[in-house]
């Protein structure tokens, strides 16, 4: 699914600064227009009086991975959280064109209750998304991430790699059309890293848009179609991954 339309030809919904008012995400939810899954316009963010983001514009398209790179403290995770509706922008608009049921977030934290078993964790999160998966579906998704044999074990006993695999299983269960990844690969064993990349391609193939904050530019760049480089709280580069020269990028 090659995306011909660049971000500008989208018909622009009225510019609505969500600085004030209820802390609610601006959801279009009326189905896909073109294939933009989430668009960010003029987003800025303050922590107290510290400027973290200013004038950020970007978009993530269906079937594509947008790699977000930049030095430490360049506001990558902050932008991701704003796009995922976990934090409010101080200025600008986040236009999410997918209902919340179809959005999934996978970050450093593994979203697991240590004393609940792998299956119980999955069942709980499924219920949070209004799903009621059958035992078979749960086992299938655990099989896919290689955790079938520890399905009944409490998640607290899992290694970091296994915990992140359970997290991935949660994402598959949701079947999202928009996925936010916050450095998912950190602390993973090579086998899990390989599984993670294979599955990210699987998500893209299923038509999901992936917004991916990464620290390993060289390793992750081949898997991305678009790159957003954040520097000094602003956008240093936003465009196709092919034309992004990673020269001088230290991360």
């Amino acid at each position, binding site marked *: 699914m090659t995306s011909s339309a660049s971000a500008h030809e989208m018909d622009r919904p009225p510019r609505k600064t969500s600085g004030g008012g209820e802390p609610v995400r601006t959801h279009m939810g009326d189905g896909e227009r073109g294939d933009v899954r989430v668009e960010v316009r003029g987003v800025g963010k303050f922590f107290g009086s510290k400027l973290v983001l200013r004038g950020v514009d970007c978009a993530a398209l269906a079937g594509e991975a947008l790699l977000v790179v930049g030095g430490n403290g360049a506001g990558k995770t902050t932008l991701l959280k704003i796009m995922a509706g976990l934090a409010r922008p101080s200025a600008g608009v986040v236009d999410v064109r997918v209902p919340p049921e179809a959005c999934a977030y996978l*970050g450093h934290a593994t*979203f697991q209750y240590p004393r609940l078993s792998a299956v119980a964790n999955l069942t709980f999160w499924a219920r*949070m998304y209004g799903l009621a998966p059958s035992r078979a579906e749960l086992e299938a998704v655990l099989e896919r991430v290689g955790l079938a044999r520890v399905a009944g074990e409490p998640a607290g006993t899992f290694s970091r790699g296994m915990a992140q695999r359970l997290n991935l299983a949660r994402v598959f269960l949701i079947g999202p059309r928009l996925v936010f990844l916050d450095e998912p690969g950190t602390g993973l064993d090579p086998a899990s890293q390989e599984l993670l990349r294979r599955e990210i391609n699987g998500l893209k193939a299923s038509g999901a848009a992936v917004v991916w904050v990464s620290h390993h530019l060289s390793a992750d760049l081949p898997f991305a179609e678009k790159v957003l480089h954040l520097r000094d709280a602003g956008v240093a580069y936003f465009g196709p991954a092919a034309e992004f020269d990673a020269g001088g990028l230290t991360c």
Partner: protein
Amino acid sequence: MLRRAAAIAGKDLRLSVGGGQGLVQAMLLGLLLIFLFSLSRPTGELVSGQAAAAIFWLASAFGLVLVFNDLFSLEEVGGCRLGLLSSPVPEHSVWLGKGLAGFLLLVLSQMVFLPAAAVFLGQDIRGSVPTLVLALIGVDWGLAALGALLGALAQGQAARESLFSVILFPLLLPVLLGGIRIFAGVFSGEPAPDEALWAAIIVAFDAVFSAAGAFLFPFLYTGEE
């Protein structure tokens, strides 16, 4: 919305009863308080109905703090707060779920405090039991509504229990006074003449802080550090 709140409450109860810190600590601290206060009377003398009721509700208030602190720290351990916020669950059903779980855990710990009050403070139920039960539910509802709202307040802070109690206890005064007055009547057998007024205050408190809880919780429970 209710189904998801029930799912959250169910998960919390399973984790808390199954070995959570909150419930056990609440019960132990409550019992300790009741025992210690029984020392405030020379052994022979009886503790008055009102004093016993005050001790009972004081133990409940401390239990409330421990229960809700534990309920919210359940989410912080695995970073599940971001999971809940990124899922389509509306924030106020997290408040409802936590409030429900906290309410039940509080009632559970009070099932221990009541007999303890009878044993250590020499009280027994002379008044009408339905009044006792109704008052317990009414007061606990208010405690849970405010506890669930302010429980999210001090998360991620050092000394969050004390910060939480310093802020929560004065706010609970109206509904605690109501509980004390009605319980005193039930313990001593002669109900206070103004029980209807106290019931009105308890109901008003429940209404105000249920609405405030549902409306204000999303401002407290966010993805911001």
